[in-house]
């Protein structure tokens, strides 16, 4: 019996890294969105920075999701 410790460590490192990165980026997007919403309801102003940050963050997360679908569907590779 031989255990693939390297593979196991790889799974641990990659999945922790991807999870933390995705959730942090998504949280930053939510932060931007929340700022923009607060500004709109406060004085009706458009918080361009907030919206821009949110858009970029959510786009990055969408890319991660697309890569996930790519990994799941065997026809793609």
């Amino acid at each position, binding site marked *: 019996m031989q255990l693939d410790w390297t593979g196991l460590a790889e799974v641990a490192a990659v*999945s922790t890294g*991807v999870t933390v990165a995705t959730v942090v980026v998504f949280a930053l997007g939510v932060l931007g969105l929340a700022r923009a919403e607060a500004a709109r309801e406060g004085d009706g102003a458009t918080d361009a920075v907030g919206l821009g940050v949110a858009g970029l963050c959510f786009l990055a997360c969408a890319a991660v999701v697309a890569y996930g679908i790519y990994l799941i569907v065997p026809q793609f590779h």
Partner: protein
Amino acid sequence: MDHITFLVAVVIVTALAFDFTNGFHDTANAMATSIATGALRPRTAVLISGVLNVVGAFLSTEVAKTISGGIVDDTLVTPGMIFAGLVGAILWNLTTWLLGLPSSSSHALFGGLIGAVWVGAGAHGVHFDKVVEKILVPAVASPLVAGVAALIATYLAYRITARSREKSVTKGFRLGQIASASLVSLAHGTNDAQKTMGVITLTLISAGALGHDAGPPLWVIASAGLAIGLGTYLGGWRIIRTMGKGLTDIRSPQGFAAEASSTAVILTSAHLGFALSTTQVCSGGILGAGLGRRLAEVRWGTAGRMVLAWLVTLPAAALVGGLSASVVTHGGNFGIVVIALVALAVAAFIVLVSRRDPVHASNVNETHEVGLRGPAPASA
């Protein structure tokens, strides 16, 4: 169709029944936290999950080439043993469902097969080193990894959004949950439906109805996909309650972090060829997310019972599988009919008991306990 003997027909029906309990049992993995946080309405959640399971079943061409992934000696396996193993797996899945415990359907299937082969062909038919390598090590490692990843991610998500309006934050993470939960469902369909397809295909090959190296016929793919999708759609609400409400009180940032970590662990390990239990990964993610929010309450009693169920799943399914195998080997077709009738009776009994304290789409989020003693007196 003269290759389809009585035995083969029974195995196919039993395999589809297992597939159904598999979907039924595992809806919670993908959807429990989304239902608990209100990201998706319960009926919508199970519908999405069911459809994605069917889609996943059709998408994946990577059908299991072995029944057990090398855990038992496939050359010694007879259709009778497969039947006995499936019965063990189904009965254990139903029992844990009644108790509202998320346990691994894959472990139940492996356990049932191990027991059936051990009794039917002897201990040399079971590859115990493979059991450690393919089941025990991933079973310990994967929930830990998912838990730690979800813990860190949850902690950071709360730190980042601490000063924002809670309403906006909740809404944002709820939307994210829909995507992450759907990914878990799709991955589930591509993995778990394949196991049943593999079992049916290999039974057909051993009966001579299909040539060696034949892929699954379309009707096998379709029926396996539909069985798991239907099971998913009907939803094991008892387990959904435990995973969404019982382990910890999940809020949407936690749900998102838990699902993200589960998806990441499932996809990276599948990519690197590790077999693992979706259920255990998702439960680990939920516990980690519970710990990641400060002052969040993790119900260690429920978590403890769940881990106990994980430990018992394989031996318990093996015991039932072994008992069934001894009846089937000695009794032939008569033995199979006896076991099938007994299994049906036990299954009906479990469903009847569950009626005393039913959990369904409209009450799944009301409390965090899954009881057996009839409805508690309504409190205001």
